[in-house]
């Protein structure tokens, strides 16, 4: 799977600086200053000559003036050296804890270093290290009887009555991202990136290229980008046969998948206090899109207990997926406070439709510190092959969609809750502290996320998200 965490090119801080606001003008001014100081290399001689010509007879002042001239010129010549050689590093350090109640615990640490290698040209390197551990739901429903299963690592696990079965896992992830932003002309810029990441059972490599073009006196930015990703999946214990019994041998070997994405967008300055961003993205995935660790239960329609033969089988998803996403973001200033409102509509050919609403309001405090409140609301419809469980004949209260008299009738099936009828809410708060020099900033945030089944079948997933970010210039 591909993480969309490379932000819209138009949203990048350096590009937005070029395109949307006076920071670009400030940067250009800064560069002009740099040019001026560079030209100062030639000043000492001319100043020195001028001094000697204009005051040849005033010998008593000559030495003083010469000394002042030398001192001045020394300072002037020192400045460009500083300006050229001390291009600082923008460094961001982040540590995040994601903790589900009774389930998965993730610690993710990030270090990001950015350097301006030329005027408005930046290179960014980001390294991410994750540690993931804890029990993860395996797709089976909570039943009135204990369920005994074999985990991917080969151990036997028995779930408690009326408890969703889980498999415990532990994994680490290393990810490296290299990004290069470069202005092509005054109005056109590009960002190119490559990334690679590895887990115990997963390898991923990808690249992206995006372009920004300013029009309308730089009040409008047009964006276009493409990205490609290639993943190699090596499930623990081997790859199971899709829709095969959980007891069957897992001997399908390594799997792979590819993904292509494209994005077009527009960012518009509405007025002095308002920005509007609109994007459309399309994605196409092909290959092994199944989760090799998820199971589906096949139950008896009489008493909703596993049928005697082949009670559990591995899920199987289509091997292609086409997605569309429409994204809209509005940013508005209210006397130094800032409101952000965003909406996304998502649809794919698995019949998943999703709406995401997000609101953030930042209160401006003394010394440019900030307190932000955040709310996110997300809904999705289920994939057409999603089943909470399957039963072997019709039963009152169970949707006909979940009735399968013969498993061989199935083409695809998954009980992964992430493909179900989800509703998710997140509420959070963030505090930002700037330090005296304003060269560094500390962000602290705490979010609470609650994910629910809109049909009320599976248990709520509740999680805390805590993160600390420290940015400074070195």
């Amino acid at each position, binding site marked *: 799977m591909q993480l969309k965490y490379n932000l819209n090119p138009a949203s990048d801080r350096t590009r937005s600086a070029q395109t949307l606001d006076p920071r670009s003008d400030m940067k250009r001014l800064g560069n002009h200053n740099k040019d001026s100081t560079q030209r100062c290399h030639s000043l000492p001689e001319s100043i020195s000559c001028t001094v000697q010509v204009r005051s040849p007879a005033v010998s008593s002042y000559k030495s003083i003036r010469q000394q002042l001239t030398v001192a001045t010129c020394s300072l002037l010549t020192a400045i460009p050296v500083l300006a050229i050689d001390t291009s600082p590093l923008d460094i961001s350090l982040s540590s995040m804890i994601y903790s589900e109640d009774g389930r998965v615990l993730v610690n993710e640490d990030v270090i990001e270093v950015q350097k301006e290698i030329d005027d408005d040209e930046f290179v960014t390197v980001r390294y991410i290290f994750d540690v993931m551990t804890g029990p993860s739901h395996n797709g089976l429903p909570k039943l009135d009887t204990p369920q005994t299963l074999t985990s991917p690592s080969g151990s036997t696990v028995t779930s408690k009555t009326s408890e969703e079965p889980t498999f415990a896992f532990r994994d680490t992830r290393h990810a490296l*991202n290299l990004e290069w932003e470069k202005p092509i002309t005054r109005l056109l810029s590009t960002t190119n990136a490559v990334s690679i990441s590895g887990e115990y059972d997963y390898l991923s490599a990808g690249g992206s290229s995006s372009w920004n073009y300013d029009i309308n006196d730089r009040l409008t930015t047009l964006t276009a980008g493409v990205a490609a990703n290639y993943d190699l999946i090596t499930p623990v214990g081997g790859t199971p046969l899709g829709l095969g019994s959980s007891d069957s041998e897992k001997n399908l070997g390594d799997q792979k998948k590819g993904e292509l994405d*494209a994005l077009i967008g527009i960012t518009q300055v*509405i*007025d002095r206090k308002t920005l509007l961003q609109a994007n459309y993205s399309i994605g196409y995935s092909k290959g092994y899109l199944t989760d090799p660790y998820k199971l589906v239960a096949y139950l008896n329609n009489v008493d909703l207990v596993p049928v005697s033969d082949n009670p559990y089988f591995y899920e199987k998803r289509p091997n292609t997926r086409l997605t569309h996403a429409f994204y809209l973001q509005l940013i508005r*200033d209210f006397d130094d406070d800032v409101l952000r409102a965003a909406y*996304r509509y998502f649809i794919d050919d698995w019949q998943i439709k999703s709406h995401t609403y997000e609101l953030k309001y930042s209160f401006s405090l003394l010394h440019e510190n900030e307190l932000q409140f955040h709310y996110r609301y997300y809904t999705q419809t289920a994939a057409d092959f999603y089943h909470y469980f399957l039963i072997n004949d019709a039963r009152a209260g169970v949707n006909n969609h979940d009735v399968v008299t013969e498993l061989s009738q199935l083409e695809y099936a998954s009980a992964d809750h992430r493909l179900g009828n989800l509703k998710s809410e997140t509420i959070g708060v963030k505090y930002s502290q700037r330090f005296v020099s304003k060269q560094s900033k500390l962000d602290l945030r705490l979010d609470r996320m609650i994910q629910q089944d809109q049909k009320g079948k599976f248990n709520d*997933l509740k999680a805390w998200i805590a993160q600390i970010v420290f940015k400074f210039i070195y």
Partner: protein
Amino acid sequence: MKKILCLVVIIFLGGCTITPIKPWERDILARDNMALDADAMLQLMDEQIYYSKEAASGGKGIGGGGCGCN
């Protein structure tokens, strides 16, 4: 809640008319907290969490890395 959020967006959009501004009037838009990707590192984490817990993703941008995301 969904209706309220929709209403907020519509009110803002309905009340907006594009007003050309001059470079020297971009002081507010120049602030860090007005940037499209303010809090990029927080967004980075959010994207990864929601990507691994929900079926929908994308829209904000493209590219990035991959994950098994159990």
